């Protein structure tokens, strides 16, 4: 079987598993799932949420670290978990919980994909940050949704990569047959990750506009200029243009997306400079 044919078959298998709802997707940890559910209540008690989150010490430490950062008043005074949650507010806590869970999806112990998945995560954080900043240009003020949409726009990639690893092991170890090369790996991931990402977004009960971004953000929607899809599409192209990306990119297509985005979003050159100025340095602390 030729590599191209194998690549097509793999794509079909992944898409079939999604259609049949038989794709094994990462689940939200129970602590996160429960906390997200409770946080939907506008009168939520942060003491109650704190009791849930403290069951996961890593997550609790992350909440405390964010709440004591300079952005949230900073300082050296120690704060309790409920105080930290109150300081952050429900929206930021929700984003932090999803971010912490998503980050784990991008961590692989397999050296074949570990590095590239780490870079995809860094790209995702860049797109999330840019999306939140670009949002300021539109009338939409839901910056947490923009951040999540940017963060999760490539969340299908590590899942597809894991599936491909599983196939590769079967082909090479069990059947002793050659597998597709790395260029085709990238190709299969590129063609299938959006469907997998949407399935994951739905499983995690992400807002509809977030899953729409995962599905559609490869192109602009010129019928709705202020849409989150356009914001994520533009941010994605800016992150690639700035060099924060994993894998190969078509430089001409990235230039085209930046150029279209300047018009569709209404971003002047001055604004684009402000968005991308020192981006790598700003993100350096956000990856871990």
């Amino acid at each position, binding site marked *: 079987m030729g590599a191209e044919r194998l690549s097509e078959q793999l794509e079909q298998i992944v898409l079939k598993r999604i259609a049949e709802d038989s794709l094994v997707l990462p689940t939200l940890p129970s602590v996160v799932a429960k906390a997200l559910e409770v946080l939907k209540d506008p009168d939520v008690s942060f003491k109650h949420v704190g009791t849930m989150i403290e069951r996961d010490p890593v997550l609790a430490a992350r909440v405390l670290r964010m709440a004591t*950062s*300079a*952005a*949230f*008043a*900073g*300082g*050296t*005074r120690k704060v309790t978990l409920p105080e930290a949650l109150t*300081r*952050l*507010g*429900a*929206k*930021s806590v929700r984003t932090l919980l999803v971010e912490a869970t998503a980050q784990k999806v991008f961590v692989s112990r397999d050296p074949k994909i570990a590095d590239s998945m780490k870079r995809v995560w860094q790209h995702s954080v860049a797109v999330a*940050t840019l999306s*939140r*900043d*670009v*949002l*300021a*240009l539109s009338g939409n*003020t839901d*910056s947490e949704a923009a951040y999540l949409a940017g963060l999760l726009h490539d969340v299908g990639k590590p899942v597809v990569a894991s599936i491909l690893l599983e196939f590769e092991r079967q082909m090479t170890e069990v059947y002793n047959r050659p597998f597709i090369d790395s260029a085709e790996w990238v190709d299969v991931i590129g063609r299938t990750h959006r469907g997998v990402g949407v399935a994951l977004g739905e499983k995690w009960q992400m807002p509809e506009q977030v899953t729409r971004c995962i599905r559609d953000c490869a*192109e*602009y929607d*010129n019928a709705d200029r202020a849409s989150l899809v356009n914001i994520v599409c533009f941010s994605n192209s*800016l992150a690639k*243009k*700035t*060099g924060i990306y994993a894998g190969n990119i*078509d430089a*001409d*297509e990235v*230039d*085209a*997306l*930046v*150029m*279209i985005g*300047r*018009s*569709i979003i*209404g971003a*002047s*050159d*001055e*604004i*684009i*400079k*402000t*968005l*991308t*100025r*020192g981006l*790598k*340095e*700003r993100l350096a*602390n956000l990856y871990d």
Partner: protein
Amino acid sequence: MATILTVDDSRSVRTIVAKQVRDLGFEVEEAEDGVQGLSKLGEREYDLVLLDVTMPNLDGPGMLAKMREIGNKTPVIMLTSESKRSVVSNVMKIGIADYILKPFKPEELRSKVLSVLQGEGAAEEVLAVSAEAPAPAPAADPAAARVEAGKQFVDVLVVDDMENVHKKLRGMLPGHVTLNGITSAQAALQSCRQRVYRVVLVDTEIPDVDSAVLAQQLKVLQPHAAFVALALRSSNDVLSEVRGQGFDNVLFKPFSQDNVDDFLSQYFDNLDLLTAEENVLKAAAFTGRPERVDKYYGRVAETFQSVLNKVAAACFEDVILDVSAAPTTGDRLVKFLLAAAEQTKQVGMRFAVVGTPELQKILNSYTETKEMRFYGSVQDAQAATQG
């Protein structure tokens, strides 16, 4: 005068484009498809082509390809309702200067037409990829942004959920410094879309708001403004912390008049405390509280040497220093004039002072200054030094 060719199969689009281009003072001609467009390009030279993508007979990409084939390098802006990246990527490869998506705002057409005619670059050059790119200047002149955007200019935006903070700061700022107080992130974003600010102050403790993120978002809308964090003295190095978050500076709460005055000096004192016109240097008026006079003279003295060097470089023999508007209380002015005279002597120039009669009396009362060349007006000083 530049001449622009608009190629579009829609008469209404051509009419709108032609009107807006004429309003800019350019000549415009029209073609309704690629064939007509090429024919017009064969008849005369144009400075810019505004080109649609989808047209009968010969579409935009087809016309563009033929133009480049025959060596026609006229800049082209695609003006189209096509936003597929593959289509735009293809025309970019053939060579376009910019892209406008229909329906377009008149200001977008104006700015891109002007930008291309002035030879400025498009998408590839706009990224600020260097981390060393300078932060906003402390007292960056927002005039350009003001004129361009036609927005209302306000000096200070305070984003703090406590209204008392706005009130306190308002009470400590001079009347001529305008201030908007905003209590929520959403309202701040809205305000930054509508106005131009010189300095944006963002509280680090707004409930439910990540101040660093909010500041970055506001910065997108206010690229010329300086961003200052409003923070408590909660650690030894708050300044480093807030700079790490993307702020330019910090103003501590609760406010002290000294801190507010320093803030004013940094962002609002006329940076041109000492202006030069040919060989006449003029010290700006002092408008602060009396106890700030030392700081005023400190800054004037700091500026003096560099302004003096410029005058010396222009080969003038005399420097005329006009201090009519400078405060004369205490001995600060006398000390400054002595230092300025010495610096002038060191660069091989002669020194003259213009000031009030009160200053003349003061200078006459000191042995070191009574011989200083003094004049009651700039004109007198110029007449004397030229004679």
